[in-house]
């Protein structure tokens, strides 16, 4: 039984006026068939999500893990669990990246099944400071980098850079995945970008720390070399640009890995590494000490009193109807995310298909923009207005995305929908305040843009397991395509039966259904992870606190030229 502990709420807070916004009290979940079926579906989806997470978290499988441990190594996750503070949460990112086997038949080959894309990334607290941790999983293809490994590594660095998080690299990698070097090596956002980012973050004063716990070959050798401080574990760690086989091939010199680039060599002779440790535990303790001595104190934790929501966040998954065509009130969601379910709604009676307003999340002020139907001109203008308010005040924005698109049709277009959509897209694109996006339902077409899709650089973007993402819905796409096809056929004087049309639509529908799944998206790093709806408040709260490390200065946004 959920009981919000309201009694401890301190109304005479020291930090300014308390938020006395109206309580969304009329959004109790009613017993109904719709709710029951939504609840059941959500239960199934969450169970599936957790099963899949559990599977990929096993890394390269039992025998690979056994072999790994026999070398006196911890797994990537064990290293992280030991590194972060006792009891610290770990906000793992893109756990399901590289997970093709369920979502993509054509890539169902072993080669393309890289649990967690062979790298574990996420944010945890180390010595009281939030850090981005990037840990190679050597049980997956020797920790080598293929396209998605690189993408995931770069995304972690991007998050670190945007949110000013010190980076800890736990290196145990064979470097680039040679069979697919063309997907890994040459492009702008390929392997080289990792070191580019390290150099530039270091230049911005964002610490770069490496713990070398295994091999670190070729390009990989630059991770420790480019780091501000580097720790090497005796026995297991090696750092070299060319490994013994390459050296032999190139010069004929026969040398062991240890002699070429072991911890002793680099800590006593070459100076590539700064700390020599006997084992991983000592290495982890050393990294913790490095973080503790950065002279980079976490901003005072700024912990304020807050109310739990009036309704349990556990109910979040039971709200969205199983039939996406059935409407529901997005305030049901907002009431289960914001502190005390208090919501200062802005323009409640105008442009009602979008809900905007202010609230608090774990005591921190946020603006909410949530879809409550398709976007009309008015709703776009309302949202654009609200983004301006938030930027003026330095208030972060949370987008609750569930959008089929903008209202089409003659009236809309003639009314200037594209112009009004432009305003929203421009406002969102240029908004300088932290933006967080959570896709709770559909994410289609230009709606995705206006509601801060991936291309609009939200600091974090999460999806619910039921979420769908594609340029348009499968039905619309197949109708559009079949209409074109029918027109073509009829132009050539041919006829097209109803059956033939269905036959034509079927693969399109299947393809769209397949490619719009949250797993398809997450596998490709179009988001930062699929989360259990019940965790939304927690995940958004943690992400918000990270995001607020930068960009909350009021009135800093330059919006450019609005077309009016």
């Amino acid at each position, binding site marked *: 039984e959920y009981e919000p*502990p309201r009694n*401890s709420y301190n109304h005479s807070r020291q930090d300014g006026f308390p938020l006395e916004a109206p309580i969304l009290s009329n959004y109790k979940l009613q017993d109904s068939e719709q709710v029951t079926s939504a609840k059941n579906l959500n239960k199934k989806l969450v169970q599936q*999500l*957790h099963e899949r*997470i*559990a599977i990929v978290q096993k890394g390269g499988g039992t025998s690979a893990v056994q072999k790994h441990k026999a070398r006196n190594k911890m797994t990537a996750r064990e290293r992280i*669990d*030991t590194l972060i*503070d*006792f*009891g*610290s*949460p*770990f906000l*793992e990112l893109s*756990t399901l990246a590289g997970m093709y086997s369920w979502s993509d038949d054509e890539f169902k080959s072993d080669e393309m099944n890289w649990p967690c894309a062979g790298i574990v990334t996420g944010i945890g*607290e180390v010595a009281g400071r*939030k850090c981005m941790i990037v840990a190679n999983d050597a049980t997956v293809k020797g920790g080598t980098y293929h396209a998605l490994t690189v993408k995931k590594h770069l995304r972690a660095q991007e998050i670190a850079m945007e949110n000013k998080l010190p980076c800890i690299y736990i290196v145990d990698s064979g470097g680039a995945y040679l069979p697919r070097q063309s997907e890994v090596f040459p492009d702008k956002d390929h392997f080289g970008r990792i070191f580019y980012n390290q150099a530039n973050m270091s230049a911005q004063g964002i610490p770069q720390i490496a713990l070398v716990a295994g091999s670190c070959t070729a390009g990989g050798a630059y991770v420790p070399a480019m780091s501000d401080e580097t720790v090497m574990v*005796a026995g297991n760690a090696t750092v070299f640009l060319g490994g013994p086989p390459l050296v032999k091939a190139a010069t004929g010199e026969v040398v062991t890995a240890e002699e070429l680039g072991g911890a*002793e060599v680099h800590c*006593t002779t070459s100076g590539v590494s700064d700390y*020599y440790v*006997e*084992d*991983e*535990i*000592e290495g*982890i*303790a050393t990294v*913790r000490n490095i973080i503790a001595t950065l002279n980079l104190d976490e901003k005072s*934790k*700024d*912990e*304020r*009193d*807050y109310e739990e929501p009036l309704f349990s966040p556990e109910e979040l998954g039971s709200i969205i109807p199983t039939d996406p065509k059935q409407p529901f009130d997005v305030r049901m969601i907002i009431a289960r995310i914001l502190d005390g379910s208090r919501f200062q709604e802005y323009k409640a009676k105008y442009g009602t298909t979008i809900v905007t307003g202010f609230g608090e999340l*774990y*005591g921190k002020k946020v603006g909410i923009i949530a879809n409550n139907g398709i976007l009309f001109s008015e709703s776009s203008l309302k949202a654009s207005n609200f983004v301006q308010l938030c930027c003026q005040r330095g208030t972060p924005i949370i987008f609750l995305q569930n959008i089929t698109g903008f209202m089409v049709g003659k009236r809309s277009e003639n009314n200037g929908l594209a112009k009004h959509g432009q305003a929203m897209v421009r406002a969102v694109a240029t908004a300088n305040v932290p933006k967080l996006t959570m896709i709770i339902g559909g994410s289609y077409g230009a709606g995705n843009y206006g509601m801060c899709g991936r291309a609009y650089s939200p600091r974090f973007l999460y999806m619910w397991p039921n979420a769908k993402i594609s340029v348009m819905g499968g039905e619309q796409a197949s109708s559009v395509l079949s209409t074109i096809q029918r027109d073509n056929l009829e132009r050539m004087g041919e006829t097209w039966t109803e059956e033939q049309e269905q036959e034509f639509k079927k693969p399109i529908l299947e393809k769209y259904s397949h490619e719009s799944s949250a797993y398809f998206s997450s596998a490709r790093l179009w988001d930062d*992870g699929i*989360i*259990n709806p019940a*965790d939304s408040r*927690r995940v958004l*709260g*943690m992400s918000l*606190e990270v995001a607020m490390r930068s960009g909350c200065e009021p009135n800093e946004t330059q919006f450019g030229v609005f077309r009016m």
Partner: protein
Amino acid sequence: KASMSTLKRDKPFEKILVANRGEIACRIIRTAKRLGIKTVAIYSTADGNSSLHAKMADEAYQVGHGPSPMESYLLQNDVLDIAKRNGVQAIHPGYGFVSENSGFASATESAGITFIGPGPEAILAMGSKSHSKRLMEDANVPTTPGYHGLNQNPEYLLHEAVNIGFPLLIKATMGGGGKGMRLVWKENEFLESLESCKRESQAAFGDTNVILEKYLIHPRHIEVQIMADTHGNAVYLHERDCSLQRRHQKIIEEAPASDLPNELRKMMGETSIQAVKAIDYVNAGTIEYLLDTQSDNGDFYFCEMNTRLQVEHPVTELITQQDLVEWQLRIAAGEELPIKDQSLIPCLGNAMEARIYAENPMKNFLPVTGKVWHHKGPVDSNLGGSDVRVDTGLESGRDISVYYDPMVSKLIVHGKDREEARLKLIESLSKYQIAGVPSNIPFLIKCAAHPVFARAGAINTGFLEHYAEDVKVDASNLPELNAICAAVASLRLEGRDSTLPKKCSPWSKHDSWRLGSNHERKLKIIDDVEASSSLAKIKCKDGSYNITIGDEKRSIPIEIEGVIESDDKMTVTLNGTEKRIYTAKSIFHEKEGYIEVLLWSSDSSDSTGAIRVCFEHPLHEKRVSNTLHSGMSHLNSQLKSPMPGKITRLNFSEGDMVKDSDVIIVMEAMKMEHALSSKMSGVLSSLNCKVGDIVSEGDVLAVLGDDDTKMTDKAA
């Protein structure tokens, strides 16, 4: 000295030196202060001037230049020098160290300083077992029956043996170390044992002469406290029973001896006075007797006399309401005994004393050294007190040093009868807080709570032989206690005081949140006896801990909520219902890599005493095992020349044992001396240079090898 008796009654001396350390030095200084006497303390380098006794005294001086007793407290001339230089009138030797050294006593007197204790002759006489026994026999004090004669005819010896009674001991006159000794239980075994004893003695010592001595089975150890002044007065302050012993180490002492007929007590007392008078003894002394428990005759035999204040003197003080140190000071100053009439010596209620040691009852009472992070008795220390009293020389934060016996303190209680005293002892022991080193308190509680100990007069020196299993301290705490300790350790690791849900940032909930589930943290319980497979698995949900205690076979889940307040008071709710209050302490032993947690129940009916559980520190476990087992790295084993230079000195040779940080080689380079020290302990397996060698940078000058004896050293 007669003139000194005219001194003011309340101040026997102006200034005294206390030639001791620890609790007894503090004890003596306390009385001296009360009487307005200035005190001079001495301290070794190990104790230092911040040790409690040095701080309590008006003046304190370092004695000698080393930490060990031989280099400090036993340096008689240095002690006397300090006394002379600082104008003290008398020296109190306490117990141990120079207290029973007749040479010191006479040197003190020769220096014109009063020795607070008996004369040197009495010390010398009582110091020799055989001499004291003869003196006592002459004074008609019963000694252990035996035959020490020259007639070695087996039949005659048998005749003597029958006179002495069985069981008896046949001892080779020249024997020692257990060789040439036979315990004979029955008459018909005597001749055979005699023959084998003689054979062994002939082979071992080339002599077949034997003596016979009565063997007392599990006697009681009863001792009488006497006091005698220089005016010929002597009284006894009743007796103490110190029968509860472990390998001749007294554990719990009490006064008066329980269940002893009044006539017998009187007889022992009067016999003691007889003995004291026979040797013109002055000041405090204790005559130890063995009381035969096998006969109902109340036969007791002189064992030895201690010519000093005893460790266990406080139990006598509590039943007589006298300050024995004051008596000693007054006697030494030439005053008459404060109470000269034997019948006026009070004997009120019962008192017990438990000696608290830093030793590990789970590891065969191995003495422990190290820092006592926290020391808090049931009452404030060193205040005297007539109900519960703690005498100690130790404060929180001080070390138990390897150089002295590991006594932490003495806990003394008084009750109107023996049972009240015993229950008070158990309660006080349960409240006693020591953290940082293990103590024998759990063992003391088990002894005091044992039904045989509870029975008056039932304790004899065989108690611990008979009931060893009953009082054995094992590590198996109740699972919920382990779980509470795990919660304390977890709170410490998390750097907070409370498991209660606190409104805080989602980052600060300490719940190990992960996608999908909360991470289960594991803390390994370190068992003192053997490597433990026990784990505390900790999950956190909504502010409370869900802790599972156990190993692969059996585990018990317990839910815990708790708050630790600033005064270490911890309120715990178990499984949402059961509320308990503890005092909780946690200490991170950084070097050893574990967290020690101690709990003391604040429920007075809970007499389990301190719960002590140690957990491996998750970030230090491996390093501990590394230094212990896996030897060293190649890096630490080599000593390389840091720059070109000339070898100027070698402090060790090949094959020598070296300790971590020992300077092995000294070289000269760039007009500077550079000392090359070892980075580990081990054997210097090779030395590749000699004095005068010019070496280059990076030359391996010495190599250290693994020290195979290290583990055995540790075990010893």
